[in-house]
């Protein structure tokens, strides 16, 4: 069952790299949140400590699947016109890069061949992290940067799931709390920039240079 979810997660990663419209970004991010919820639920259902189970469930479902997409949607609503957005790098090449990232993460995954964490989790986590980075690098607008950061978040969360089942619950809380705090601040600023420049296009955000 887990394998199916992870494969679906991989597909969303590839699809996100060639998405054009902001609406598709929203759907994919929400989908990833839901997938992670199922993954976390199946992963932790085995473990007996109820508290961490409730937190993880709440955290993935509420934050990742619902709260963040809503936040992004009202940013999109404010940008009246920009349905379709331009990319710094043509879609074909960004997909190529993502494939390369997948190849690298597979190689890296089996190089680190310690058995105590499921290898497939490791590979997908690395794949998600690299895709997040590529998303940020290949786009000019702020919105895709935000989405890229979220994908990076999901990758890190998946990796902590793979490793973190042993790590104590308190530590997980602290980490995820911080990650989401930064997401919130980013969201606030993104909307502030949107309001200030009435079009969250990041090109003109490059006046600070040498």
């Amino acid at each position, binding site marked *: 069952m887990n394998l199916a979810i992870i494969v679906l997660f991989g597909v969303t990663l590839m699809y996100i790299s060639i998405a054009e419209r902001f609406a598709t970004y929203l759907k994919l991010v929400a989908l990833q949140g839901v997938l992670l919820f199922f993954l976390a639920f199946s992963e932790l259902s085995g473990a007996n400590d109820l508290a961490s189970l409730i937190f993880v469930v709440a955290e993935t479902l509420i934050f990742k699947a619902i709260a963040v997409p809503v936040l992004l949607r009202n940013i999109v609503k404010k940008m009246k016109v920009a349905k379709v957005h331009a990319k710094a790098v043509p879609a074909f090449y960004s997909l190529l890069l993502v494939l390369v990232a997948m190849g690298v993460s597979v190689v890296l995954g089996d190089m*680190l061949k310690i058995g105590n964490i499921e290898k497939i989790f490791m590979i997908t986590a690395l794949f998600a992290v690299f895709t997040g980075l590529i998303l940020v690098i290949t786009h000019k607008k702020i919105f895709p940067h935000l989405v890229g950061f979220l994908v990076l978040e999901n990758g890190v969360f998946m990796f*902590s799931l793979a490793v973190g089942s042993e790590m104590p619950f308190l530590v997980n809380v602290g*980490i995820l709390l911080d990650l989401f705090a*930064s997401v919130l601040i980013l969201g606030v600023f993104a909307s502030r920039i949107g309001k200030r420049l009435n079009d969250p296009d990041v090109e003109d955000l490059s006046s600070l240079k040498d």
Partner: protein
Amino acid sequence: MLYFFIISVVLVGLMLSIRKPLACKVLSGLFITNLIALLVRAYASKGQTELAYFTFDGTAIIMLSLMVAVAIPAYIHSFYYLTHESDRGIPLYIAGLTGLLTSLVGVYLSNNLIVLWVFMEATTLTVSVLIYHHRSTHALEATWKYIFVSSIGIALAYMGILFLGTIVSNSGDIPLSYKGLEVLAASANPAYLRIAFLFILVGFSTKMELFPMHTVGIDANTIAPPPISAVMSTLMVNGGFVAIYRLLNILDGTIVGQWASNVLILSGILSVIIAATYLLKSNNLKRLLAYSTLENMGLVAIALGIGGVARYAAFIHIIAHTFLKAALFFQVRQVRNTFDTYEISKMGGYIRHYSAGALVLMLGTLGIVAFPPSGLFVSELTIFKAMLAQERWILFTVLVLVLLCCVYAIVQKLLSILYAKETVKPTGFKLSMSLTAVQYLLIGLAFYVFFFKDGFVMNLINEAIK
């Protein structure tokens, strides 16, 4: 430790609630006494751990004392800065500064990677409020970039910590504490250690102004108000140094240790080269000082990489650099008010307008480019000595060439402020003598580093290096 955190959180809350500037003054005074009490307690109970996650070891005490030395003038300058110029958001500014210092205390004292990581994240959030103080479009852009890139860095660092977490999982004691990790690292799978080190180094390079992600730190330093950029390029950089230094200690015993030092040296030499290129090019005073921080941190990274006596020199370099850079940034405000601009090409003849400040600038310049009376000379000499003792001749020649360019750029630009013909009519603004005296004190401390014999600071450093 716990009281310290509670008190500081309460103080921040009070600052935010009471809007009056006078209250902020009193509260910040309280915070400083709280800080000094913590320092005294730290020095008294050296080596003990408190609250399971915080220990007072050599490094922590040095960094805490540096923080106290820089925080007090930072607060004084901030109040002058706030009352004279912008009166917007005084409580938010002071609360942000107090929050930043508290999280930095957390960074210095933590004995656990995860706790260190959490407080690192806290510093990013608190400092973003301070960078955004001017609320101009530039400030907005700088803050956005700073948060975004720092968060990516923090996420990468978290990945690295998770990799380290894999080797801890089978032992089950306090997770990821330095001592615990050190013991386990010897037996861990080297590939994991390598990737962990790489991710954490790249993650924290925004904080310590090292090569991969130094860029946003430069922008933040340029836009933030001078007292804040003083704190950022000294105390926050020290925080990054502590993080990477702890990491290097963990890997010291293992076979990966040599590899980690080489990566650090590579990152160090790249950042010094980039600093040299931009020092020659930049025409903005604060940008120049930010790039000089990048250069000095590159040198510290090289010193850590070389190891042995160079580690000792790295600590001296950090101490001297903190004092000098803080003094220079505080003086920048006075220069800004005299010429009403940061453009170096427009400034000139400063020695005639405000000779006391000009002398601070001259002593600071000659200190930052490591001429004898400054502590940086001691550390650079020891670094070169250790480097040549290991027969690293190519590194030596490249570093010498690049350092010469940096010295040329810094001396030419900063001294042209003193002596060149000024194009902008000076406003005749005079900073109060007490503030300039504080800057003299800081430079005096930096020059004291050059002369001190085996005082208590020395055995603190020896403890830190163990």
